[in-house]
């Protein structure tokens, strides 16, 4: 799993992830999301275009990030979720709180 964060001039942080968001990588992603919020960037967009697979641990990391962002007055939005990611979000109905945006730009709109 590769991960890096771009912070935009307006303070929104975009996390670009690549690989599988799973049992092995979820702790690292959870930590990165918490760190980004703690550094003053509670408005998050997670770009999942390069993520091939999300399991329940990966979902847990995203939920953890969502909670941290909300507590700090921000939000966590998912962009470019792959087919398998949409399947997992749909099976858990978590797509109601982690609504997938088609593009990063759409996720950024109104932030």
């Amino acid at each position, binding site marked *: 799993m590769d991960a890096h964060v771009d912070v935009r001039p307006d303070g929104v942080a975009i996390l670009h992830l690549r690989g*599988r968001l*799973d*049992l*092995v990588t979820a702790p690292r992603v959870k930590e990165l999301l918490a760190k980004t919020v703690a550094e003053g960037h509670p408005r998050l967009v997670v770009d999942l275009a390069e993520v091939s*697979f999300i*399991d*329940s*641990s990966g*979902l*847990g*990391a995203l*939920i*953890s990030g*969502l*909670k941290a962002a*909300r*507590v700090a007055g921000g939000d966590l939005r998912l962009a470019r979720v792959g*087919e*398998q990611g949409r*399947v*997992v979000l749909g*099976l*858990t*109905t*978590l797509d*109601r*709180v982690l609504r997938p945006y088609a593009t990063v730009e759409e996720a950024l709109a109104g932030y």
Partner: protein
Amino acid sequence: MLRSRRRSLATRPPLLAESTLVIVAVPERLAAVHEALERFWATLDRVLPSRLQEAMRLQFATAVIEIANNIVQHAYPPGSAPGLLQLQLRCYADRVEARFTDRGGAYALPPALPSPLESEGGGIMELPEAGMGLLIARAALDRLDYQRDQRGTNRWRLVKWFAEPAEH
């Protein structure tokens, strides 16, 4: 039996494809399960008359990974002696199946639960950050069985039919 739709497993159509994987049940080896699934789909593209729906592949693969995760986390928890996990992927004319066996600790299968949003009244701060694997597997599959035999072998069976059975 945990979840079953109307079809019966009593009659067994011909086995079209089977592959077996044995790995050490540790998180770092789970990539091998992904690779086994990829090889399995490639085989099915050759032996089935038409390509399986992508949604079905993704649901089945997602459930297989969740059960593999479960075995790695619960049958052989951190600190215990490492053990093996065997996965058999099978394709019959009307379904795909995955069978896991391991000789780790017994698993106490919880009852089927509603989705986290339904059970927690929609509160985001109350959403669980772990424990959703079985919920996902159950939702993705048509049938999920778990048994532990007298000799201490855990057996999981995952079934996904190719199409919804006709309504009666």
